């Protein structure tokens, strides 16, 4: 019976740990499908997390205040990134890294100066929806989830519809595959890319906000712990496809949800080696994704990382 309880408990923790990965990877996919290589996730997660906690402490301790704040803050930083790489054509790797370090420095500074560090908030509450709440009490741990978890599938479905079933999505992908062709067809490459980056940043900001408001329920410096980098890897693993990214995120959710429960179950293993596992698994997954002829490169958006240059215009 103990093992059964352990599994229910573990599986119940999976959605909450998988959600930040899923949303962040989805945001990155939106941006990269438009041809903008996006390494900013780690920074945007931090900004979203701090904004969520900051809004909760300064305005009102309500998720409907905190999560929009997280989204807006990340969109602002996304706009800065888009300005650098789309308008000014800065190298996308350099700009992405600079934005991450900018966010790390800024959030650490603001968090300390505003004294938002280690102040717990009540944050997002768990809920269980009606037909599931009728199930036997032992399984409630499985379905007692944050509201945002229940919103995850609609969000993924919506983004999938927009990217692959709508005219906007077709144009966005055209801009990412062959900007010159899209341009001669009359599409505003700059506009699509800026909008894609900002929309993607909104999703990553939501992920960051959830991490703080739904997860830790407090702010501490560097609290994202490399999840943004794992999300960047997830996108390659998912070959820029939303549903595959969701699957990958669940995989990481399973691993991360296992980490604290191993120690709690009284199994003695060196804790720091356990903490290494998400990173090692990410590398292993990348090795798996790169197998075969061409590997993941085949599915990479054609113009990923390449700025669109059009000077000849008269």
């Amino acid at each position, binding site marked *: 019976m103990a093992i059964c309880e352990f599994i229910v408990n573990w599986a119940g923790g999976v959605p909450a740990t998988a959600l930040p990965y899923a949303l962040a990877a989805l945001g990155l996919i939106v941006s990269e499908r438009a041809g903008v290589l996006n390494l900013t996730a780690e920074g945007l997660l931090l900004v979203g997390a701090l904004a969520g906690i900051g809004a909760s402490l300064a305005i009102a301790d309500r998720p409907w205040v905190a999560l929009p704040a997280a989204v807006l803050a990340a969109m602002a930083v996304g706009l800065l990134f888009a300005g650098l790489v789309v308008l000014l054509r800065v190298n996308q790797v350099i700009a992405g890294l600079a934005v991450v370090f900018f966010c790390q*420095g800024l959030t650490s500074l603001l968090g300390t100066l505003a004294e938002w560090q280690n102040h717990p908030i009540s944050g997002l509450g768990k809920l269980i929806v009606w037909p599931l709440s009728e199930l036997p009490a032992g399984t409630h741990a499985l379905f007692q989830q944050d509201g945002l978890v229940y919103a995850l599938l609609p969000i993924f479905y919506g983004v999938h519809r927009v990217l692959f079933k709508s005219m906007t999505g077709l144009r966005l992908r055209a801009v990412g595959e062959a900007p010159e062709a899209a341009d001669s067809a009359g599409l505003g490459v700059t506009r699509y890319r800026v909008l894609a980056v900002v929309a993607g940043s909104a999703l990553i900001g939501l992920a960051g906000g959830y991490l703080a408001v739904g997860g830790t329920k407090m702010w501490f410096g560097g609290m994202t712990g490399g999840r943004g980098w794992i999300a960047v*890897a997830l996108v390659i693993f998912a070959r820029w496809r939303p549903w595959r990214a969701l699957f990958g995120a669940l995989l990481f959710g399973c691993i991360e949800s296992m980490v604290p429960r191993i120690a709690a179950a009284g199994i003695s293993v060196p804790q720091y080696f356990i903490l*290494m596992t998400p990173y090692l698994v990410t590398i292993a997954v990348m090795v798996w994704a*790169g197998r075969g002829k061409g590997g993941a490169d085949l599915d990479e958006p054609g113009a990923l990382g390449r700025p669109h240059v059009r*000077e000849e215009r008269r």
Partner: protein
Amino acid sequence: MASPSFLPAGRLNLEIRTNLAMGRQMLILVGAALIGILVSAAILVAAGVPFGELLSEFVIQTLLDPASRQAVLAQAGPLVLVGLAGSVAFRTRFWNLGLEGQMIWGSIAATALSVFDFGPPGVRLPLMLAAAATAGLAWSGLAFYLKERFRVNEIISTLLLNYVALYLLLDLLYGAWQDPKDSFPHSPQFRDFERLPDWGWPIHGELLLALLATVAVFWLLSLSRFGLYIRFVHENKGAARALGVPVRAVMLASVLLSGALAGWGGFIITDVQEGRLTQSFFDGYGFSGILIAFLARNNPLAAAMVAVLIAVLFVTGQSLQIFYQIPFSMVQLIEAIIVMTVAASEFLIRHRLRWVA
């Protein structure tokens, strides 16, 4: 598109500019860096540091006061090494973002010799240097292997390996290597013969090492046959291969050298600053190495000079931390702002805005 009638006729045209005089380029870059510094100063003022203080206490004091000048030079040693490490890797377009992980490995390997009291005292220091370089290059070599063999993007692998190295460090410091004397999470103090020699200011073993590395890397990249190969690989891998340049060997060599230099950088910090392995000795150096290489355009001599400027920033950041409780990550914020403004200014170097009637 027709302009509304209240605007003057004509519009701004964007043209590619291929040859801008070196002097003008420098002017634009320095101007951009100054804008970045001004933005940073504005943030510091907003954070509660009086503007007058900022100028007198930190900028002038840091450069004129002998004690802080010494601190700047002490800080410059490891920064030169990580800056060189970044430059060497970026020359072959290998994004080695794992400088911190390689620094950690370098320090762990060198500290291992001290912990296990390995080798006679007379050659302990050279052994520690060799161990630091070997461990650093092994860690960067791992990322290279993953890229070559399994096509794992090095941006991701090097960054993730940083976390793996960090947790190994924590495992050692909270476990096997915890100092038994005070039970703090740091390794036991290095012995005297394990510390880099100090022959009185400014001749310190650390600076000699940094200087030596700068000259060696300069020779390698600018004067040797290897440097020529690297230039080929940087410009066009396919063409280089067709011309008979051993592309893979050149890339491997530069990645390994990068890791070795970063390993040394890590070792120097542990050896000179605290004389023991600590949990966060590498903080801020990884991005600094990337920043230095970027600002120096991967030129080793320029990297050494930029590293000294960043060292001034580091020492200033430490004073700000002590006197104004500004977190040290402010240094990181300033670095990121400068990268952004300088990178953005390259737009003006590569393009010309012209009014077309």
